[in-house]
């Protein structure tokens, strides 16, 4: 055999290249990666989500540092500098009271973000507790809690917010309170749905067989398994809170003067927006970009962490 082979002389054109044959390939076994690395991988493939994240970071940085670095204050009244269009000294112009809009805008963005984050933080605590109890204990407790929630949920957010702020004096705390009062329901629903799913899993049964108490099972077994859904929900709630804050300010129930939020700036600009469109347009654009970025980021996060949530 070997002797025969040696006698054959190979010529360069004996073999012909047939091109890439896609269907003949070796199965690549993906190396096992931790779930979070996988998620980051999927997330960074999503261009929109990455752009969203970058925009959020830029806006947050500006909101923190722009007012500190500027020589103007957000509540400096200067009657000699009224309604100046954007120029080199006042990058976004001044408002009808002569206040620098660049500083006011970023102070406003800071407050809007602060309100949204606080409101969502309270939502998470209240909603998670409610959802965990309702989902975990089930039965009568669940029925009663679900009926209560159903009734609260069927009052439109807009009516609750409007009436609440009519009764309470409008301030940072009351707006946060009003927003969290209406928004926790979404969180509690997601948590409850996830708890119902997770509590049937075998590791929960194993834990119970080992003698674990409800408290331990809820916090050590169930909660760590629903974090990703909660993070997604948080990211989806933030733009909502920002929007409702702007809405409240716009109908005249926002923060009292001289405080600025994106909503109050839009509302102030609205008074004179046909004459000085920049006063309303700039905060409106920042608000829209912020909401857009959070939505893109949230969508990307959802696809990366839990694609099945798309249906919800």
């Amino acid at each position, binding site marked *: 055999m070997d002797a025969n082979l040696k006698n054959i002389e190979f010529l360069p054109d004996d073999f012909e290249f047939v091109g890439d044959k896609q269907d003949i390939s070796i199965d690549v076994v993906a190396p096992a990666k931790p779930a979070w690395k996988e998620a980051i991988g999927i997330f960074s493939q999503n261009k929109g989500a990455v752009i969203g994240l970058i925009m959020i970071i830029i806006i947050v940085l500006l909101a923190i540092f722009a007012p500190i670095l500027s020589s103007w204050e957000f509540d400096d009244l200067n009657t000699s500098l009224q309604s100046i269009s954007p120029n080199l000294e006042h990058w976004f112009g001044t408002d009808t009271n002569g206040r620098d809009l660049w500083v006011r805008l970023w102070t406003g963005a800071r407050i809007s973000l602060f309100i949204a984050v606080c409101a969502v933080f309270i939502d998470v605590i209240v909603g998670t507790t409610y959802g965990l109890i309702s989902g975990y204990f089930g039965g009568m407790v669940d029925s009663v809690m679900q009926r209560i929630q*159903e009734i609260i949920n*069927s009052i439109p957010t807009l009516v609750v917010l409007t009436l609440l702020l009519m009764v309470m004096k409008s301030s940072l705390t009351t707006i946060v309170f009003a927003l969290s009062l209406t928004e926790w329901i979404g969180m509690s629903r997601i948590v409850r749905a996830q708890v119902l799913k997770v509590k049937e899993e075998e590791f929960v049964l194993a834990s119970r067989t080992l003698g674990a108490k409800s408290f331990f099972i809820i916090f050590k077994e169930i909660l760590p398994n629903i974090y990703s859904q909660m993070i997604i929900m948080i990211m989806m709630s933030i733009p909502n809170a920002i929007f409702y804050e702007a809405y409240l300010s716009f*109908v005249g129930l926002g923060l009292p003067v001289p405080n600025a939020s994106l909503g109050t700036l*839009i509302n102030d600009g*609205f008074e004179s927006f*046909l004459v000085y469109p920049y006063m309303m347009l700039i905060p409106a654009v920042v608000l829209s970009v912020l909401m857009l970025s959070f939505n893109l980021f949230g969508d990307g996060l959802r696809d990366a962490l839990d694609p099945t949530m798309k249906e919800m």
Partner: protein
Amino acid sequence: MSKSTLKYIGKRLLISLVTLFVILVVLFLIVKLLPGSPINNERLSETQRAAIEARYGLDQPILTQFVNYVKNMLTGDFGVSYNMYKDMPVASLVGSAAKISFMYGLSAVIIGGVLGTLLGVFAALHKNTIWDTLATVISVIGVSVPSFVFAMMILILFASKLHIFPTQYSSMNPIGSSIMPVMALSVGVIANVARFTRTEMVSVMNSEYMTLAKAKGLDSKTLIFKHALRNALIPVVTILGPILVNLMTGTMVVEKICGVPGLGKLLINSILSNDVNIILACSFLYAAMYIVMMLIIDVSYGIIDPRIRLGKEDS
């Protein structure tokens, strides 16, 4: 309709009625808890104020007031305006405002629904091309950007720069002045519907019965509109709820920007001038509208797709 469907509808109807009653009680309490007298006229002396309050029955205990209010409400009498429009019956004020808002909302839903469906189908048929990306970008922007920003931009463009439409609502030209607010309101609807239709269309186009329909040799028009779209549109019922919520907040702000004398503007003005009966009637109408729409959506979805029984399917 099976027995269980009827039972389901009955249960939902009962919950809705209870909710409406709870809302009415809460609204009534909130309005009564408002600081200050509902009659805000600075020049009145104490005795005059007391006389006026007695005339409106405001001196009676709160329970009697509530019972009277509910009794009157059932006969269609929502009391009279105290401050804004002196002694005008609230029912007719709210009625005429609601008619405008309702027309705007309905037009926005129809226009937005048709355009959104077309956009969604277009994107799904050109899946993963530049057109699809473009349609997705449009719908993401439409979902994220609040409707008042659109209203403002449309106003600057069409009224302030091009002078096509009047800047503010005028009763002389109700159709011309309705175009801009309806445009602003329908953007959100278009975006929501397009996004949803696209996802549904893509999944329907990949299903086996579509392959069968293609294999039968149907032409693409019948294929898309008769087979795919009809099935893809059924789940669109689920996003009617969020669309409705968007429209309700949308009308409030858009009406303010365009100066439309609708329900939203009436509610805002009544809050600012502390006109309790109008506040009560407007908020109640908003809540009732929402509840009734939600009821219709839930029930129709239960009938279309019997696998869905809200509140039951997850336990």
